[in-house]
């Protein structure tokens, strides 16, 4: 079980879903906050869902206010760096590039991709945390190799 958890985590890193920041968060986890990482992740997903919604609405409105979109995305990117959501972050950067270029289509496309990555990460992390909780606290704190 524990090994399984470790493997899952390792794969998340290997596949580029997560970066160093996630490890930093794990380092912060301690007895005072034994579920720190999970709490942070939960918070992130809650907040980012809200941001995604904002962007969705802005895009749906059709009025492509690039400045506004860029601003949203900046927020989103900042948020995504908090848990080390690597792929999501990449999409954010791309989106902002398109915004700056005024490329509507690029924005839309990237945004779809971003949502996908976001959803994938969410699922994976949920699964990971679930297992980790079952496996026991020690495992989660261990660094992947």
């Amino acid at each position, binding site marked *: 079980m524990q090994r399984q958890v470790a493997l899952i985590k390792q794969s998340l890193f290997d596949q580029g879903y997560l970066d*160093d*920041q996630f490890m*930093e*968060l794990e*380092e*912060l986890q*301690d007895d005072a*906050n034994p579920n*720190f990482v999970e*709490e*942070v992740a939960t*918070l*992130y997903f809650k*907040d980012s869902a809200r941001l995604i919604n904002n962007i969705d609405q802005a895009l749906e409105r059709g009025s492509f206010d690039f400045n506004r979109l860029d*601003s949203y995305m*900046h*927020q989103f*990117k*900042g*948020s995504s*760096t*908090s*848990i*080390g959501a690597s792929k999501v972050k990449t999409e954010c950067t791309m989106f902002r590039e398109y915004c700056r270029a005024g490329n509507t289509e690029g924005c839309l496309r990237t945004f779809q991709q971003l949502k996908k990555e976001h959803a994938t990460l969410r699922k994976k992390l949920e699964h990971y945390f679930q297992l980790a909780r079952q496996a026991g606290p020690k495992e989660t704190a261990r660094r992947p190799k």
Partner: protein
Amino acid sequence: MEKGFTPVGLRVLVVDDDPTWLKILEKMLKKCSYEVTTCGLAREALRLLRERKDGYDIVISDVNMPDMDGFKLLEHVGLELDLPVIMMSVDGETSRVMKGVQHGACDYLLKPIRMKELKIIWQHVLRKKLQEVKDIEGSCCYEGGADWIIRNDEAHFLGGGEDVSFGKRRKDFDFEKKLLQDESDPSSSKKARVVWSFELHQKFVNAVNQIGCDHKAGPKKILDLMNVPWLTRENVASHLQKYRLYLSRLEKGKELKCYSGGAKNIDSPPKDADLNSGHQSPGKSSYAFSVGSSLLHKATETDPKPLASASVSDPNSDVHMPPKAKKTRIGFDPPLSSTAFDSLLPWNDVPDPLESKPPILYENNFLQPSQSSYVSNSAPSLMEEEMKLSYETPAGGTCVNADEFLKSPTVTLQDLDLSAPSAISCMKLQEFSSNVTNSTESILRSLSWEFPESHHSGSLDTDLDFSWLQGEHFLANTGLQNFQFQDYSSSTSLLSELPPHLWFGNERLPDPDEYSLLVDQGLFIS
């Protein structure tokens, strides 16, 4: 996790609209043993800051926030409160960073932020404090170099106006070699600086007044009028500059109240008594000693904002000694006799060792060499005595007289008895060497901060090399037990809530034995 030194209890206000980051930063800062307050809105942050003007030591804020631009917040904080502000953003674009710098940010961190970056934020606090003192201090020409040494047996020379021995300029003076023991750092040989004693400054002021409008008064003329053989034009020039700064600051509408002179005149050079008793008394000893302006040398590294004008504010304002020194007051040395110890605000109410936040008073008193501003006050009774000294200087109002001008920056760190048996906080104020990096280093050295692990924390800036650690006493002979950073201005935040123990990464304090050694040596500023 990498261990390093961080001052325990540094009060940080974190402002970020991103709840995830807020949570993470809170945790990270707590891990640094800082005291964290989080805030999701800029306006809320401002409100908090204004409510408790001295309630925070540093602000960390995100650049992009919905209700107010981070830069705006930065401006407000800088102007109103003169706190160091660190900006954060996921965006590292040069233009943004520059904007931050221009608005006065102490630093600009990129997200994701690392622990090691947070561990060193206290340096900004210190730097800022030092710069403020430096700005305000003016006259004491501690432009580097260990200019004044306060020792039991040599205290007098800091003290009197006729302490010209120190005034011998350009005398190469290796304080460490003289005063320190083997631990001295030979590399920091300092030059003797002119010590602007009260009398000397009085001569200066007289000369200036004689010439007339001080703007027309040139250093050469002043020098001639002063007729002090060993004084050079350069000395006068730099003193003049500071004097002018001081004047302009006074004119800035600060109310010129009576300065509560923090100077404690301890008539009979109590040094011995103080020092010795100081270290001997268990528990709360507060020693105040003034720090030369040279202490604040890190000016070059501080943020560009002219703190001086804004913050330093009035040395005048808040000059009074509250019995409970929770806040720093500006200690102005009233025209004192040349007793070696002018106590800079002894504001040390002997704190309850268990008190969580003994005030760390950062005092900006001009260092008066004559007033060595060293008050070593170990015994509570002594403290009281100091406290009793009236701080009201006669010089209220706009008159700028020598005594007002000469304020010894006092750096008194209220000694908190930390867990260790020794009450002495082993803060030694170290004089600064001429170069900037050394000065901060030396200040920090003088603060016998303990490092949790090693004195060379990997996370520290290299220029702050705390090689001093218990066990090493390069400041061995300092008698500065208490090191208070007192904020002379009401608007400036103090490191006030940083009692000595806070500055310790861990609880351990040097042994009392070490202290006694140091104490006996007197205050050493290298």
